[in-house]
Each structure stands twice: as C-alpha cells, then as structure tokens.
C-alpha cells in the first residue's frame, strides 16, 4: 500500500469513528439506555445471520464506544469475546476487521490466528500482506522471522512489502535488507522500503549502501535524488563526510537530471 492510499484509508477510518461516536452520544441513544444499547450492538455483532451492513455499523460504534473508558468496561470482555469468535470463524466477512482490532489490543487469539495463517497458508484468515502488517505491530511476537519466511516464499508484491517493513525491527535482517537494496531487478518501491528498514536497524550499513547507489551509473536519477535527501537529513547540515561530499560533487557535475541537480546544489551549499 502506498502512502496516499494509507492516508486516505486512515482518514476514512477516523471519519467513521467520529460519526459512530456521535451516534452513541445522541440524546436518543442515551434515553434508550446506554447499557442496553451497547449490549444490543454486541448481540447484533455476534449474530452471523444479521445483515453485514448492520453488523459493520455495530462494530464501528462499539469500537468508538470502547474509547469511552470506564463506561465501556462492563462490556469489554463480551465485546472481545465476540471479536475473538469472529476472528476464528472462517466464513465471517468481518474477520479482517476483528483481527485488526484485536491485534491493536495485543490479543493472543488474533496473534495465534495470524501466525497459523502465515506458517500454513491453507489456514490463512486474511491476505498475507495484511497478516504480516498486523503481526508486526508487536515486536515480541516473532513477526520478523515469520516475515523473512514470507518474503522468501511469496509472489505477492504487497506481502513482500509488508515483510520488508516488518524487518525494520530485526537487527538480524541487515544482510537480507542489503541484498534487497542491491537487487536492481526488484521494484523501486520494494528497494526503498528495504532501505528504510535498513536505516532503522543499521544506519551505518544504510549510509554505505546509499553512497554506493548515488555513485552507481545504472541507478535511476529518481532513486539517487531520494538517497541524497535522506543522507543529507541523517548527517545534518554541514556534517557530511568527505566520501559523501566527493560523491555528491562528482554527481552534481555529471547529472543531466534537473531535479537531482537542484537537490545536490542545495545540499552542497549547506556544507
């Protein structure tokens, strides 16, 4: 998923949550009795025969209500219980939503469902990409080693991207991430994610790779521009090493790409 798409989805989620929160807070909802209203919504969510639209709305409203803190406490366990039931049900269309919520809560049932699905794809509850993304929310759940397995076996570009993202918290992934950056046959997006993850686990290794890319004639100008900006930010104004300075000077005099030249000029002026 790219950043724009993620922002759009995130914005929509916030909007839905705000709207649901307002619904629960209306005088009508209050006069009907919050407790019975929440219980009814939990029952509706549990009912697999109810309409999907109604159940989805109940889920959104319950998620919003769960933010109200102590008021929701009496319903917390039954809400989680229903979500766990949905997460375990193969045919439930709300399975992914339930797993998303439970994963954010660090729920062991969600973790088990996701791990099983990733180690045995015949048991997969949701897409590999989504499962890796959700599992990687917790560094203590061994997501990074599972991510490496997924990266090696999957042909799904989205799953590969999520696997590389998950490696951002795995210091043992340095060699694999370095290989990903070096591999010019891989999509730019994947290599960039690899670079971002490498920067997280080993900034020095990242700088070495970035320098190599900037100096490599076979790499695209767009990629070089990205790395020049990142290296500049990492080093701070005026703190560029001599190797980097020399490489940038050389590139500045040879590149025909206007955007790259502009960035290089700015960076070198700040030295």
């Amino acid at each position: 998923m790219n950043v724009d798409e993620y922002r759009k989805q995130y914005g929509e989620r916030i909007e839905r949550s705000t709207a649901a929160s307002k619904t629960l807070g209306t005088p009508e909802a209050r006069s009907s009795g919050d407790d019975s209203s929440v219980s009814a919504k939990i029952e509706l969510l549990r009912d697999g025969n109810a309409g999907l639209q109604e159940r989805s709305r109940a889920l959104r409203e319950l998620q919003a209500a769960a933010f109200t803190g102590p008021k929701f406490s009496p319903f917390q366990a039954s809400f989680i219980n229903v979500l766990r039931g949905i997460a375990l049900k193969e045919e439930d269309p709300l399975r992914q939503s339930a797993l998303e919520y439970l994963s954010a809560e660090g729920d062991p049932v969600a973790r088990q469902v996701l791990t099983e699905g990733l180690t045995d794809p015949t048991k997969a509850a949701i897409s590999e990409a989504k499962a890796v993304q959700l599992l990687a929310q917790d560094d203590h759940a061994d997501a990074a080693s599972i991510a490496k397995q997924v990266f090696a076996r999957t042909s799904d570009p989205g799953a590969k991207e999520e696997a590389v993202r998950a490696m951002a918290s795995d210091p043992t992934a340095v060699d694999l991430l370095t290989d990903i950056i070096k591999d010019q046959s891989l999509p730019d997006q994947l290599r960039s994610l690899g670079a971002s993850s490498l920067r997280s686990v080993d900034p020095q290794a990242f700088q070495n790779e970035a320098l190599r890319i900037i100096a490599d004639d076979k790499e695209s100008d767009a990629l070089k521009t990205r790395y020049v900006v990142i290296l500049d930010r990492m080093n701070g104004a005026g703190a560029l090493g001599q190797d980097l300075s020399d490489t940038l000077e050389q590139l500045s005099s040879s590149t025909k790409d206007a955007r790259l030249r502009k960035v290089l000029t700015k960076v070198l002026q700040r030295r």
Partner: protein
Amino acid sequence: MSPAPGDLSAAVDHIEKVRQGLLPAQDLVPLFAEQSSFMHLLTAPEIERFRGYALSTFGMVGLPVNAEPIVLEELETGTEPYTIAAAAMAMLGAADHGQEAMDLLKAARVRVLARDVNVQYQRFEPIFDIASNETALGIIDDAIARLSSRRQSLPMQAPGPAAERSQCCCCGGADHAAPGKQVDPGKLVLEDQIGARTSFGAFFRGQIGILTFFYTRCMNPEKCSLTISNLARLQRALAEKNLSDSVRIGAISYDPAYDLPHRLAAYGRERGLIFGEGCRMFRSPNGFGEVQESFELAVGFGPQTVNRHQIELLLLDEHGLPFKRFVRMKWDASEVLAALEARITSGGT
C-alpha cells in the same frame, strides 16, 4: 527435571503433573526464573501464557512461600489480564496475605478494567473458551471478596507475602549482591547514547553508582519506561542534595542490537534524564551475555528481543560491585536515596 530450552509442551506437562498431585507445587517455581534455559527462545506471549497457567495452578494446589514474590510482582507490574487474574487465583492458594498484597490486587484490578477478557484455566489450550462467561475481572473480584472475608475472620494478621516481596524465586532470597564469578564487569565494553565507547570500570569505578537495566522496545509501561522516568527523578533528588558529583548513574540496555545510540538518547531524554559525564545510557556492542553473567540478571530472550525481565536496580560500590539490589518489585526513589546517603556517610564501609 527442567524442560529443554523452548520446550513449552514439556513445561505444560510439568504443570499438569502438579495439578494431578504427581509433583509438588514447589517444582514449578524454578520455571518462573526469567533466565532459565527453558524460557530461552520462547516469545513473550508464550511466556505470558505459561506463567498464567502455572500461576492459576497455585490457586488449586496451594502457593509455595518462595512463589509469593512472583505473584506479587505479577499483581504490581503485570499487564495481561489472563496472567493478572491467574495471580489473583494464586493468592487464594496462599496460607495468608498481607495488606500490601491486597492493595496490589486492587490496583491490578484497575489495570484490567479497560482490557477485560474471557479466560479459562481448566486447560492450557485453547486460549479461551467461547462458551465460558468467566472473565479476568470476575476472577479478580472474586479473589478480593474471598481474601477480604478470610482476613476478617483472622484474629491476628501475619506479615504475609509482602514481607518477602523482593526475594528471588530461584534461590529463596539468597544474597545476589556478590558479582558473577566468571566475568570481571570492569572490562565490559559499553557504548553510550552519543556513540562514545568506554569500559564499565572506567565509568563506574572510583565512585558509588546506580546501575539499572531497560530496553526501549519494552511494552510494559510499569517496567522500563517507569524505571527510566524514576531514574530521572532520582537524578533530580540527588542534585537537590548536592550529590550529583558523588554518584554515577548508568542504565544498560538488555537489547543492544536494536538499542542504537540514537534510540538510547531519545528514550532517556523523553523520560527526563539529563545526560552528562556522570549520567549515561549504554548498550554493550559485544552482546548482552557478559553483562547478564556479570550481574546475574533476571532476563530472558526470545527469537527477536527480550521475552521477559524483572525490574533490576543495583547500587554499586567504588569498585563497581553491587552492595545493594532492588529487584522484581518497583523501587522507591527515597529508599534508594537513603541507601546511597548511608553509603556515602559511612565512607564506603
């Protein structure tokens, strides 16, 4: 016989035998030690699951005295409702309990309120029984009610588990102040929050010191994050008493491969620590094994990072060796300060 490293099913078999009366409850206690070989390479969630199941067993067969600190620790700093409720069950297996234990139980109840879940302890698997209505909160409330009525019926109150709260489960509270035998901590290589390298001896020797342990990926707000925040408070208290120049402050990460200097700096700064020559955060670039060995630390490691650790704060003498340890339970800054002042006043004797 201890289960092999990472052999969760053998450990669960152990618990089942205790439940069936084939083994004494006492046999479970060593399995709780964070550094035990059995815990090695288990994930943190697997350990939570094991601990919860084992703790609930104490509620059924009785709580051994040297397991009481484990229960109190869980009530004080646990975050998983499944394990906290199991600790509440374990309290019911204690011969008696003190007021502090009851206070911890009530405080734990507050932490569970917003995260309540259905639980079952009849079997290790599955994690929960969809048909069961038993909740973590319900179990805790039941334990509070039963323990309260039990206390009211007692004519005199014994000190209870809180008296042994800082004891070690692996040795029943033996003195851990002596350093490890195999590694001289003075030679340990450390890298600080700005990437400068030094040795443990160069930083800690010649003055008394405070040494604590943490890691930036710790998910438990009651442990590492609070430890470093409290360390910052302790630093301010030392400054108010004009003792800043007399005491070295150091915090070493359990997770040196991930906790690079920039992460150490951000973590300490965000929690109010003021870095300087006498106050630094460290990682051990050669790995954590030698540090753990030198100070016999209660920490275990999973496939990716730390899987479980105790709270550990050591007061070091002028030779860099521990003369007092605050372990397992949250430490009180005033108590640490008093111990330091006493040491300074006595001139290191």
